């Protein structure tokens, strides 16, 4: 645990092992103030939801709840480099929990240039203080790419280059998370000629694993789930080869896309606004990168307003923002490289016949076969009759 006191706190607020149902679990009431207006039940429901997002047993939701309310909360220092602030903006759109629950109660967001109230020397001093007090325990989160050209002069805060700031901050971090595509591999600032020499955080922080939550912006719940996993279990979840948590980036978008049946049946939108596009056909031929992009967008959606709230759901091809080498590298309407199945060259007709009744020819053939069978049977039976008579006669003469 980052603070080293979670076990103590967990003991104090109730013996979890003995809890059969959550109704008997009274401990968290003591933290009423910490729940930011959520009822205890709502809070536990939320934590169970987080456990589900992480693919964990719902029973572990209680562990997450305990860890989230245990004081002092883990310190998070959030640094922003060359970015559009979209990653912070996306966090503002969460409502389970709301951002204030997260930053005031779940974690202690001690430094974030967009959200903090302080400014100037005050803010900078506070950052130094927070780092010193929590040396070796705090979580470091960054959004935005790191400019490296010309000594990194293209992004400076408080007289220090961003490159220096992240190197300094990473030294004392318990874990390093880079949120967004820019921080993960360079993102849009690194496209084309890359005038600032923008790179991802992992290019400059080599001595520590840098967990990435790519996306432009990424789904905030992937970030929240990662943080809460770390807070609750004190370790990082399973990661893939690009250091992305597998619970969120384990599957191709293509695999869970609601338009996938159209792909398999060969129904494609060929241009924006055409018949197929209005019908919700597959966007592969408009350049959708779903077939080569790993992310949970189709299953989780954005902004908590229900199914279909993600780019492909609204009719725009995925441009592969979570995939290095796809997002910001391939052009938006370029055909995706198919990682799993290729579409066949020919397809069955879209409008299928429902079959016809019996045709005269078929009726005649069936009747013919039945007739021939009965006729042949009768002939055989007749011949067998004679055979039997002979047999009877011969047995009588014997």
């Amino acid at each position, binding site marked *: 645990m980052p603070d080293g006191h979670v076990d103590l706190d967990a003991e104090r607020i109730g013996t979890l092992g003995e809890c059969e149902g959550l109704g008997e679990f009274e401990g968290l009431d003591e933290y009423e103030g910490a729940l930011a207006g959520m009822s205890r039940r709502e809070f536990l429901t939320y934590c169970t939801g987080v456990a589900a997002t992480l693919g964990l047993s719902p029973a572990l939701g209680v562990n997450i709840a305990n860890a989230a309310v245990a004081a002092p909360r883990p310190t998070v220092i959030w640094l922003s480099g060359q970015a559009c602030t979209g990653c912070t903006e996306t966090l503002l759109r969460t409502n389970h929990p709301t951002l204030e629950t997260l930053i005031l109660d779940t974690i202690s967001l001690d430094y974030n240039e967009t959200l903090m109230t302080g400014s100037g020397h005050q803010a900078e001093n506070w950052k130094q203080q927070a780092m010193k007090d929590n040396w070796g325990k705090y979580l470091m989160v960054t959004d935005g790419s790191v400019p490296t050209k010309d000594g990194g002069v293209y992004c400076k805060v408080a007289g220090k280059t961003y490159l220096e700031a992240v190197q300094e901050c990473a030294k004392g971090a318990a874990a390093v998370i880079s949120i967004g595509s820019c921080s993960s591999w360079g993102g849009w600032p690194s496209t084309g000629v890359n005038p600032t020499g923008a790179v991802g955080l992992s290019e400059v922080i080599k001595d520590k694993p840098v967990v990435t939550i790519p996306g432009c912006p990424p789904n905030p719940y992937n970030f929240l789930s990662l943080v809460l996993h770390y807070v609750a279990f004190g370790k990082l979840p399973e990661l893939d080869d690009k250091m992305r948590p597998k619970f969120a980036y384990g599957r191709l978008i293509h695999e869970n896309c609601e338009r996938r049946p159209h792909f398999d049946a060969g129904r494609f939108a060929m241009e924006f606004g055409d018949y197929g596009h209005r019908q919700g056909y597959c966007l592969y031929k408009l350049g959708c990168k779903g077939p080569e992009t790993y992310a949970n967008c189709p299953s989780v959606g954005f902004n908590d307003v229900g199914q279909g709230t993600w780019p492909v759901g609204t009719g725009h091809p995925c441009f592969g923002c979570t995939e290095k080498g796809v997002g910001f590298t391939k052009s938006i309407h370029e055909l995706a490289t198919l990682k799993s199945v290729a579409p066949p060259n020919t397809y069955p007709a879209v409008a299928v016949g429902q*079959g016809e009744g*019996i045709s005269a020819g078929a009726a005649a053939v069936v009747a013919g076969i039945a007739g021939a069978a009965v006729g042949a049977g009768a002939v055989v039976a007749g011949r*067998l009759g004679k055979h039997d008579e002979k047999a009877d006669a011969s047995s009588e003469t014997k």
Partner: protein
Amino acid sequence: MSVHAHQPHGHAALGGRILTLPFLVCSALVVLAGYLLVQRYVYGLAAVSNLSDGYPWGIWVAVDVVIGSAFGCAGYVMALLCYILNKGEYHPMVRPAVLASLFGYGLAGLAVLVDLGRYWNFYHMMLPWYAQPNSVMLEVGLCVATYTIVLIVEFAPAFLERFGIEGLRRKLNKVLWVFIALGVLLPTMHQSSLGTMMVIVGHKLSPLWQTQLLPVFFLLTAVLMGFAIVAWESVMASLNFKREMETPVLRKMAGLMLVVASVFVALRFVDLLWRGQLGTAFGGPSSGWFWVETVLMVGGLVLLIPKANRSRSRTLFISASMLLVAGILYRLNVYLIGFTPSVGPWHYFPSVKEIMVTVGIFALEVALYLVFVKKLPVMHAEHPVGVPHAADAKHG
């Protein structure tokens, strides 16, 4: 147990002309089916069949596979009687029955390849990493494939005798019991699974046929149709090849047929009564087909009740034919007539081309049978009409 000890009879090829009228008619039908199959593989299923998304299974499954494999149960029941129940007197009928089974199953497998939309993936069934081990269909597929191989081995002695490969034949005889045991086990498994396959379609199958007992009924019809085919084939062979009737053995088998058919009919009505569906038989949908099937079955078994009738080849033939048709209809009812695979205005009746493919497959079976019994030692050689064969001396 030595298989050899139960072989009191030798076998001999019948000899005679190959190019007889029945053979030529069958060959013509096979050629026609071959032509249609070329169309099917060049232009796809829709060019030849009336199969649709609503009726993905047509007669190529219901008739060629489900009924065709029941035709192939002759070898199953004969092996069961002769080797497992140790009734040596049935031995003369084993080899022709195994041959009929070999064609029945081999061609059922061929029919699957005709029916499969993505036939080029058929071998995936054999690869464990593609398998879904809880699938009934996988069980049927693997069982049928394995059983076809078992039948080839069971029939192999006939080949080996014909071509005088004595050493191999003797070696094979030592392990043949394994294949005979498998040859009884496998059909028991997949014939009942053919019923299970329709248990899982649930309400899509008419309540007249939908029951947990479907596997039992399919096993019973398999045994019954196996007996009926043996009787039928024995009578036809005696008549057409002018051989003595195998009346004493047939008489006993007729008794067994009577028992199986009676159990089937009794269980059928008990089951309907138990499920409270007896009323559906009177005026419910497809109830006419239920009665045709039941009347044929009852008619066939009633004919066998008087003991004297069981020795009469004509009554035996008529009864076996009726039971066979009843079994065919039962399986057709379960797989096509009483089965509504999807909701909506879907219709299915096989196209002429589809029917001709099925006819061609059955014609191929008959044509091959005619060639095999004439050229290979299949029929027992008690009263050989054709040229006596050297296999007689070698045997025993």
